[in-house]
């Protein structure tokens, strides 16, 4: 009975996401914190800055190199995590500039991608993201501590301003204030094969654009397999593999294969972290078939402010 209720809740949560989320940007670092690790609560404010080649936004390539900035505020309280994230892709137009023929049924230039093609990403305006995470425990191996996994809801919003000019006169004939909403749910996964733990992440997201000349939406369902890192001198190196499906691009079934490799270096003196990510992302559309984008990103992040609530300096004999 209990199990049936849980299934119903999970299904309802999945269906409720028929609003809008988003694959995490390549420059958004991992931020899980074991609730057993902090006292009452933990607050962290963080800045990440970097640049990348052949940047892709949510399986939609910019066909361009770009910089990026991410500012996050995270509050961890007991088993709950709240995040507010402000991000911006730099070096790419932050509004859409189109030209219109002035016909009765206007035709816009550049012409938006066809429905069975990979959609264009939104312009590089700033994106606001809210996240709610909940940590839960599942049994680990016998004698091992319980394993803590996270379930997270993500909602984000981005404004899309469009300026339309008349093709012959170049005069502004229309301005549109559109937006893109995204909503998603993701959960860590854990199972065991023999002596090996298998870690991963399953996510579903829906992204929809409105108030633009190219209103598109897409649903994403993907599994990310995370492999254990290995140490190479001061670096930690890891591999991940994402496989999934994205809708509304004329290619049903599996149409995303995305291995990724990340080198991570914690700089002890400055407490900054350097990340180098190579993420060759292959996506398939009905019109273009398989395309691969070689995303390479180099970015640094550092906590600007960290506060632990409910932790005071204990005396040496606290646990005696």
């Amino acid at each position, binding site marked *: 009975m209990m199990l049936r209720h849980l299934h119903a809740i999970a299904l309802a949560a999945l269906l409720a996401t028929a609003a809008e989320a988003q694959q995490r940007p390549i420059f958004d*670092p*991992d*931020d*899980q*914190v*074991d609730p057993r*690790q*902090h*006292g009452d609560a*933990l607050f*962290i404010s*963080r800045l990440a800055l970097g640049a990348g080649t052949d940047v892709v936004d949510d399986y939609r390539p910019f066909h361009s190199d770009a910089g990026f900035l991410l500012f996050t505020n*995270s509050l*961890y309280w007991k088993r709950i995590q709240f995040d507010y994230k402000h991000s911006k892709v730099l070096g790419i137009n932050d509004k859409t500039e189109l030209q219109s023929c002035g016909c009765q049924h206007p035709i816009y230039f550049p012409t938006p991608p066809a429905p069975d093609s990979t959609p264009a990403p939104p312009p590089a305006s700033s994106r606001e993201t809210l996240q709610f995470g909940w940590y839960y425990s599942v049994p680990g*191996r*016998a*004698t*091992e*501590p*319980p*394993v*803590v*996994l*996270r379930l997270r809801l993500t909602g984000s919003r981005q404004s899309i301003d469009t300026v339309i000019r008349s093709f012959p006169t170049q005069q502004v004939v229309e301005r549109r204030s559109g937006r893109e909403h995204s909503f998603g749910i993701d959960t*860590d996964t*854990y199972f065991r094969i023999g*002596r090996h*733990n298998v*870690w*991963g*992440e399953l996510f579903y997201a829906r992204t929809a654009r409105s108030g633009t000349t190219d209103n598109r939406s897409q649903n994403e369902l993907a599994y990310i397999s*995370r*492999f*254990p*890192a*290995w*140490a190479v001198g001061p670096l*930690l190196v*890891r591999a991940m593999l994402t496989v999934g499906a994205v809708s509304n691009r004329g290619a049903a079934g599996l149409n995303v294969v995305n291995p990724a490799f*990340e080198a*991570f270096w*914690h700089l*002890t003196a400055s*407490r900054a*972290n350097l*990340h180098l990510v190579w993420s060759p992302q292959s996506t398939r559309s009905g019109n273009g078939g398989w395309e691969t984008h070689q995303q390479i990103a180099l970015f640094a*992040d550092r*906590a600007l402010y*960290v*506060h*632990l609530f409910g*932790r*005071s*300096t*204990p005396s*040496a*004999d*606290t*646990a*005696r």
Partner: protein
Amino acid sequence: MLRLRIILGVFGFVACTSLALAQASGHHLTAEMIDITLEPAGPCDHVSAVSVVMNKDESTSFRAVQDKSDPCHWTATRPTFYVESMIFSLRLGSARTQCKVAQGSAATRVAKLTFRCCRTGARQVDLETTPEMSVKYIRSVPADLDVEEGSVPCEEEYRYSGQPVIIQSVWFPREAFDSKLERAQEVSSLRPVETVRIRLGYPDSPSLILNHASFMRRIDPKTNTLSAAQILLAHQEQRSKGISSMPEGFSVAADDAEWKELIKTLRLKSVKVLVK
């Protein structure tokens, strides 16, 4: 009314006591002596001291006495205990055993234990923090029926009582040592025997696996210490390998939380680690 309550109270007390006594005498065997046999005879001749961990409590371990006529036979006396509810394991100096429940005898009031000797080489580890702070450790030992018949999984804990913290007979996997440290001569088994986790400062602070290469590799061979920064890096590496009971990852938030706790709040400078 008061009289009725007193009568009911006395009746309840008598009933509970009778039930407890009946259980103790009828279904639960008690013992006051622990009788330990190490098998096979050859290797156990080399064991010079046996420490017994009872009830998964490392901080109250006690010594057993060797039988003068049989070097593989050891005994220890304890205040009366229920045999079935106790889990035992042994520290044999250069080895440790799995965990087991003893066989009781109602007639002799002796708890009998037989352990195979001596599966893996082990080392004593002494820990000292600067400044002094509470150190807890937890030893997770899976059952291994191939090696020790009747073994059960157990988690043995140590409550802090001062420094240095001495961890007896710690099993190390071969890869835990590198050329900087003297390689353990008797680190023989590739099958995991135990995971030893330490907690610094708070009883609920993050646990760091001690018998792992990510920890051992960072010990400065000249001073036998790990700086606070090295402790953080060891934590980070263990998280990235998915051995910290969390999904593997480069969680920068977890790193910062730990930095705040260990370095800013506890003011940890270093941990001296002597592996003997």
